[in-house]
């Protein structure tokens, strides 16, 4: 049984506590939205789960593999504020690079997508005919969507998406909703933050305000 487990995760930056004892677990197939005011630590928690940050206390594990571990990373797709799209490269080249390192990350499969797969994924995010245009000629929104095209290919069991809907139009949001839903139905687990309104069936919410640390320490 695949399950993401947050075990009493606390984080403080330079002795200033951000959240304490976040406790949660979700089975495979869940779609979870992190909520909280600006500065509540949504991005921080996502980065902790991804293993980019070390929690001050507590543990994160996916399928009993601790975060940051090789077997954890090989199941992970993480999309941060900066999506890792090279401006001097074309969308196609960017996707090729990403999947050359990551592969599809499907269960037991080290396959990479093929060229038609890349083109299709780019078409899904509205970049048909832009496959070979260097990204610096694309708008900020279009560059962002190059990264989103990864979602239409990746089979990674755990998706961590930081503001995936930024700079995406209504139609694009609908397509993403559909894709996220489909991924969850296939047994994927999706954690995301967003400021935009969106709808999927069975959305769970983790409100970080509940774990807000009280100012002074003992």
């Amino acid at each position, binding site marked *: 049984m695949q399950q993401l487990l947050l075990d009493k995760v606390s984080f403080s930056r330079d002795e200033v506590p951000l959240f304490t004892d976040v406790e949660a677990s979700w089975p495979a197939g869940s779609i979870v939205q992190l909520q909280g005011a600006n500065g509540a630590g949504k991005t921080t928690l996502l*980065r902790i789960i*991804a*293993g*980019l*940050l*070390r929690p001050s206390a507590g543990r994160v594990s996916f*399928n009993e*593999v601790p975060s940051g571990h*090789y*077997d954890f*990373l*090989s*199941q*992970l797709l*993480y999309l*941060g*504020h*900066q*999506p*890792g*799209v*090279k*401006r*001097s*490269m074309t969308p196609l*080249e960017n996707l*090729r*690079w*990403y*999947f*050359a*390192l*990551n*592969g599809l*990350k*499907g*269960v*037991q*499969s*080290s396959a*990479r997508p093929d060229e038609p797969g890349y083109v299709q994924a780019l078409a899904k995010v509205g970049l048909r005919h832009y496959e070979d245009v260097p990204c610096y000629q694309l708008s900020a929104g279009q560059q962002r969507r190059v990264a989103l095209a990864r979602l239409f290919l990746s089979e990674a069991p755990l998706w961590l998406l930081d503001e995936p809907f930024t700079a995406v139009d209504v139609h694009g949001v609908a397509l993403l909703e559909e894709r996220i839903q489909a991924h969850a139905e296939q047994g994927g687990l999706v954690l995301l933050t967003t400021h935009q309104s969106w709808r999927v069936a069975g959305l769970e919410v983790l409100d970080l305000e509940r774990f807000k640390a009280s100012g002074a320490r003992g």
Partner: protein
Amino acid sequence: MSGNLPAPGSALRAMFRHECALQLRNRSELYNPLLFFTSIIVFVPLGISPEAGFLKQLAPGMVWIIALLSVLLSLDRVFQADFEDGSLEQALLSGQSGYMLVLAKVLVHWLFTGLPLTLLSPVLGIMLALPAEAYGCLMLSLFFGSGALCFIGAVGAALTVSLRRGGLLLSLIIIPLYVPVLIFGSGAVSAAAIGDSYGATLAVVVAFWLAALMLAPFAALGALKINLAE
């Protein structure tokens, strides 16, 4: 659950190709260290003396120091762009070996700075009246020496990667670490210039290169992770 990633070899090849393509597309950044390397040489005769006998003595050390400065100036872009656009975290979260990724990046950086510097160095040797016997040694010492400089410098570049204006700081922290490479690199060329045997000295430079190649990526990787946790 493991074994669902692309094989390390194919990932490394892709990384290598990607890095090379990136270097080729940012050509102006590529030329700058080389232009610096060849243009600053004008200062030497103008600032010191144009007399061949004098320049001859100066040449081995001068070419080495200028090469070292060129590498130093090129270092801040090894990881900077990748850090800022998120490619770095994507690469490190892919599950591929971080050591290999850093190794590939620095190797490509050397390929596009250290190697051209090595190839250009005879021109500088001629302009500084370097004796004919020393050219082989100059190129060999710079071939390995610039590799060592790139790898040692990568640690500094990684340490300062999240700092907006890290360039000068990077030089400050790396200069002391460059001392041994400079001593043995220019020492070998000096020996060659006066017809002495330089094999043992050159071997030390190769040893530095090997040690830096093996150890520096670990330190750089650790430093990058610290900066990503900012």
